């Protein structure tokens, strides 16, 4: 059994790679335990740790005359009193991991690949993508949504007594029930109806910006721009005169940035439409004859 360990620590994260050669003619079971101060971040597929990994490290088999390569990350805790300081790690990486050979591997030890974890790993996660999940403006619901298992884990729900099923719901006190409905009630989670209304609102806003350019006549915008031009580099007297003549105040200038953006958008759209109008040139006479 020959092992090769390498550790790179950078920015609070240590990357540990372990290579184990089994030159013996029998498969060997071994345990790799992390000794760095921090939680083990094992390799994952579809969000589920690869088989053999747990919080401490890896447990598995190296086949006869074969090599196994492992790698994991450790989020180093910021505390000063570490078992192994990062500087030590670079000079003596073997201190980062404990490798224990547990003896000959038993053929029958191989578990069948039929756990839920195996199913998720091999078939791929079926969760809807994060982008598809509506974000509510209510901050409490974001907490409920991002309900990572840790944060969403509630205080232990009341003991499930195997008494008569009919009485069970009544065994909840009012406050507990209120808490349960707070936690799980639809008010905390956006429903699909919320999503569609949010989308409609968003679309409506999109139209609004387009229309506001068209409806707020270009003349108003032009007046604002003229005012801005007169004020640009003007003396105090000129500026005062310009402002007194203009029907708008200095605050009208606040919308200049927005005006600029809107006009650019309008210009781009107008150019694109003009290009399309130039490209699309059906034979009008022929069509008229057809009609």
């Amino acid at each position, binding site marked *: 059994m020959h092992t090769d360990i390498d550790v790179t620590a950078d920015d609070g994260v240590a990357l540990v790679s372990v290579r184990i050669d089994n030159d013996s003619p029998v498969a060997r079971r071994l345990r790799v335990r992390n000794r760095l101060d921090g939680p083990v971040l094992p390799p994952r597929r579809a969000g589920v740790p690869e088989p053999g990994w747990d919080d401490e490290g890896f447990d598995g088999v190296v086949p006869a005359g074969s090599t196994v390569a492992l790698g994991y990350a450790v989020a180093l805790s910021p505390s000063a009193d570490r078992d192994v300081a990062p500087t030590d790690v670079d000079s003596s990486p073997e201190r980062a991991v404990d490798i224990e050979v547990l003896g000959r591997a038993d053929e029958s030890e191989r578990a069948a690949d039929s756990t839920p974890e195996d199913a998720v790993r091999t078939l791929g996660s079926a*969760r809807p993508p994060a982008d598809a999940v509506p974000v509510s403006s209510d901050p409490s619901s974001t907490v409920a949504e991002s309900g990572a298992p840790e944060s969403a884990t509630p205080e232990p729900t009341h003991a*499930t007594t195997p008494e008569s099923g009919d009485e069970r719901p009544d065994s909840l006190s009012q406050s507990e029930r209120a808490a349960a409905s707070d936690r799980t009630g639809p008010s905390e989670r956006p429903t699909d109806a919320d999503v569609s209304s949010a989308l409609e609102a968003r679309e409506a806003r999109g139209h609004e910006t387009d229309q506001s350019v068209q409806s707020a006549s270009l003349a108003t915008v032009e007046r604002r721009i003229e005012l801005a031009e007169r004020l640009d580099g003007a003396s105090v007297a000129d500026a005062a005169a310009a402002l007194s003549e203009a029907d708008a105040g200095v605050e009208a200038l606040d919308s200049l940035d927005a005006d600029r953006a809107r006009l650019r958008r309008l210009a781009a759209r107008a150019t694109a439409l003009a290009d399309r109008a130039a490209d699309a040139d059906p034979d009008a006479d022929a069509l008229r004859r057809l009609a």
Partner: protein
Amino acid sequence: MILAVVSGKGGVGKSTLSFELAAALGAVVVDADLGMADLPDGRGPDLHDVLAGAADPTEAVRPGPVDIVPCGRTLAGARAADLTRLAEAVAAIEREFGTVVLDCPAGRRADAGVPLAVADACLLVVSPRAFALADAIRTRELARELDAGVTGCAVNRVTDPPPVDPIGDALGAPVEVVPADPRVGRSVTAERPVATAAPDCEAAAAVRALARRVPE
């Protein structure tokens, strides 16, 4: 006993047959279609909450003509649900209520695979058409990989007599024909299983035959 009701394609009547089978077996039916639930919803915690760790599995059982664990309808709930908790949740329901029927989603992703991995056995539902059979064979393979024995195959919503023998040969499982019957179609929304609403109809007899094949 945990029985998964599966199919390759959607819309072949898994939810309806799950509900009917649960009625015939006196079982709890769990709506395990996390993304597109079909069984009636209700107030209180649902499977999304259970799989997000926010509710106790047995709390989510909603008593009725057939006990149901409903599933939430939101995308946020579907995303927060951790499928790897399903085994533990279903085991807890089985301990307290006995037999559990899992109404699975169609397809071959993890949301269909995990219930199969959790189940002791599965029932394949196919519609009596050639293209549906090809998908049923793929689902049978998935069930085999995940160690869920096939107890039978229900050819559902049959109007003309289907080729029972070729289907049975292709799937390697005993075939039961469930004739098309509007009472079966209405049973889920009305929460009136044909086993009690129309026990003498052919469809109810077919469901009973399917239930008899489910081992204890």
